């Protein structure tokens, strides 16, 4: 099973859709809501976003691959379903 983690915002509808996608496909994942995280965590997340050329959320990591945006087709491909 590939490891799925994501950075999200509590205010972002696409982040909710992303979480729903993985829940509906019975794929376990971890997430951090950026806006609810502490300053050090926010700073670390921003570094990752900037390094990946991402300007917004959701930011999904599937093993070593990262996908920026709500893109179910890409999630499926990365997971292999």
């Amino acid at each position: 099973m590939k490891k799925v983690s994501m950075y999200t915002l509590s205010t972002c509808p696409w982040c909710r859709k992303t979480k729903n996608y993985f829940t509906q496909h019975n794929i376990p994942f971890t997430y951090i809501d950026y806006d609810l995280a502490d300053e050090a965590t926010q700073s670390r997340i921003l570094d990752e976003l900037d390094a990946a050329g991402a300007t917004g959320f959701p930011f999904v990591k599937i093993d070593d691959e990262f996908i920026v945006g709500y893109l179910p087709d890409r999630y499926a491909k990365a997971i292999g379903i």
Partner: protein
Amino acid sequence: MNAELRKKALHYFFEKIVEPLGFKFTLDVELMNFLLDQEVILENKHGIPFCPCQPLRHKRERDMQIVCPCIPFHRKHFDEIKRCWCGLFVHKDVLDPDTLPQLPPKDVNHA
């Protein structure tokens, strides 16, 4: 302030800003309402209706570029994907916003 009234006010302000830029509110009313709800919450918290889908960096210069409608500051990207990042606004010619993928700048096809 009453949240529903504030939503109406934001709708009024934003509509006249995005229109000359070639954008309109998304036709997905449920999404529009959710996003405007979030903006009212963010405005109550920070005093400013920030984008609900982009990170606050706590640096004024950067954060002012994600105040809704943030289209003027991300125009090339949003014109390419025919919507703003959170999807509150879409290009005027878009009839089915659900068909637009949420592509980040690095993944936009420049062909």
